[in-house]
């Protein structure tokens, strides 16, 4: 199963213009809130209609503005997990799951499933999600995690060809998230269907997704594997979304030498700098206090201010008098506070070269 999306839609303040392909596996759409990622999902599901473009799923055309095709959501077989789960409040958990079953059956085979058969199947799905004991509960008496499981059960009952997840963890306590992320990941793996996962949280992308695509102000970026996205985000916007704390505009001084304008330091690289490099990004964890193998750059640590986090120290500092501040994060080894060296060391392989509009 393969999803192809290329759509444009005018929204308040900007134009949504996304293009991507997704195969089996979890595909993350990462973007800040209001960037159009949920709208993209709604367009795939058929809830919203794009102004133009094409959406294809496994060879089926779901939407094509040129050929005037716009399948109703009922015929798209897309399982949509809403941010607030959208369980039917007037139905019990069991009835919610049965609603998913009934919809799938009536849309695919055009004949009704027998009541008994349906109840059995719904029961099987409930036990798969470990919510058998909640079968007779109404949604308003469920916790956030239980609601998510019930909504997932309803979605699976529908036997979708693609799964669309709209910020599924944003309504949950952080203590619950980890377990539900695990459950969700194994569910999605076992489905062997494409899953589009919308989020603004880079940790969720790292935990859940195989591939990722950034959306910035309605425009989609390149599609990369999650690992290479965090190692080499490519653009300034993507670097911010990936959680990079230190960003600076650059001036290229030589084939492998550049000046970080915002910080007032010169840095060396072991490779040639592409001429379209506009920014660099350095993760807060990339600096080391002691010289290590590969430490081919060093920066002075000026005006350090220490902030204590739960498991690490965050030190903001300047690399030149009057330069912009940088962040350095280091693990807590002693409770008294980190020993601040005079210089910090940096492996030039950890400098991320970024494109982007000069601002």
């Amino acid at each position: 199963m393969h999803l192809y999306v290329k759509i444009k839609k005018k929204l308040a303040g900007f134009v949504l213009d996304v293009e991507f392909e997704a195969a089996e596996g979890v595909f993350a759409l990462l973007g800040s809130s209001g960037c159009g990622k949920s709208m993209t999902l709604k367009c795939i599901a058929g809830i919203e209609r794009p102004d133009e473009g094409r959406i294809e799923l496994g060879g089926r055309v779901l939407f094509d503005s040129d050929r005037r095709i716009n399948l109703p959501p009922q015929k798209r077989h897309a399982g949509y997990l809403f941010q607030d789960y959208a369980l039917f409040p007037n139905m019990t958990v069991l009835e919610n799951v049965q609603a998913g079953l009934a919809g799938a059956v009536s849309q695919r085979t055009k004949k009704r499933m027998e009541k008994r058969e349906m109840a059995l199947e719904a029961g099987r799905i409930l036990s798969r999600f470990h919510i058998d004991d909640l079968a007779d509960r109404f949604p308003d008496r469920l916790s956030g995690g239980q609601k998510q499981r019930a909504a997932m059960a309803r979605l699976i009952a529908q036997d979708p060809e693609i799964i669309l997840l709209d910020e599924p963890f944003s309504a949950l306590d952080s203590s619950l998230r980890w377990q539900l992320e695990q459950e969700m990941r194994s569910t999605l793996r076992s489905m062997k269907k494409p899953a589009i996962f919308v989020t603004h949280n880079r940790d969720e992308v790292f935990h859940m997704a195989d591939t990722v695509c950034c959306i910035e102000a309605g425009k989609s970026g390149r599609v990369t594997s999650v690992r290479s996205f965090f190692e080499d985000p490519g653009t300034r916007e993507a670097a911010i979304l990936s959680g990079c704390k230190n960003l600076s505009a650059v001036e290229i001084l030589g084939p492998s030498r550049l000046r970080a304008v915002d910080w007032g330091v010169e840095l060396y690289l072991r490779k040639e700098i592409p001429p379209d490099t506009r920014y660099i990004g350095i993760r807060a964890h990339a600096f080391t206090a002691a010289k290590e193998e590969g430490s081919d750059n060093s920066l002075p640590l000026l005006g350090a201010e220490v902030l204590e986090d739960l498991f690490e120290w965050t030190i903001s500092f300047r690399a030149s008098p009057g330069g912009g501040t940088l962040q350095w994060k280091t693990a807590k080894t002693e409770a008294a506070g980190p020993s601040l060296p005079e210089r910090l060391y940096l492996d030039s392989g950890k400098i991320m070269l970024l494109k982007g509009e000069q601002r």
Partner: protein
Amino acid sequence: MSELLSLLQKADWSPLFISLKTGIVATVICFFLGVFTARKVLKAGPKVRALADGILTLPMVLPPTASGFLLLLIFSLRRPLGQTLYESFGIRVVQTWLGCIIAASVIAFPLMYRNARAAFEQVDVNLVYAARTLGMSETKIFWKVILPAAGPGVVSGTILTFARALGEYGATSMLAGNIPGKTATISQKIAMVIQDGNYAAAGFWVVIILLIAFFIIVLMNLVSARGMKQVKRY
């Protein structure tokens, strides 16, 4: 005391039955018509919606006698529609029980329509979206998702509609007249006996209508209290 008993025995109960019959039939008509138009208006564009809303709410804002006058203009036997209805189908609206029903329906309709519309408006749109992605047909979505979610609002609208239809006076008196045993509703009976100076009979009917009204309000509170269970209080 004996005076009251004899009054009860002698009393002509027809106004009560006419009122109840009119109220029930008008409520059934208003229910389907109100729910239907509320759905249609919600789906329409903003301009059509504003216009339609204005027209459909008009009977609530106009004095009932003005509505009655307009209805009389429409259904009078000397007018095209009234004439056609009578000559082709033998249907007479003016001075008949059908007139009672039409007058009550027209006056009570905005209550049903507005309550249903407000109830539909507050249904979480994601529920409808979810139902669509699950493959439910639009008809099924309406009966299984939208109507239950809008339930308390629709029910209280129905009860209010019944209450309004039951007590309708102005338009009914103009269109259906006050024919004892035929179109004389409780409210018309009260007006009539007061003109005759029969305060005891007026008081009797006032007590009856008071009891019904009180019963309706309590019923409505019970229904909305049930609906509130799913809604958080603030």
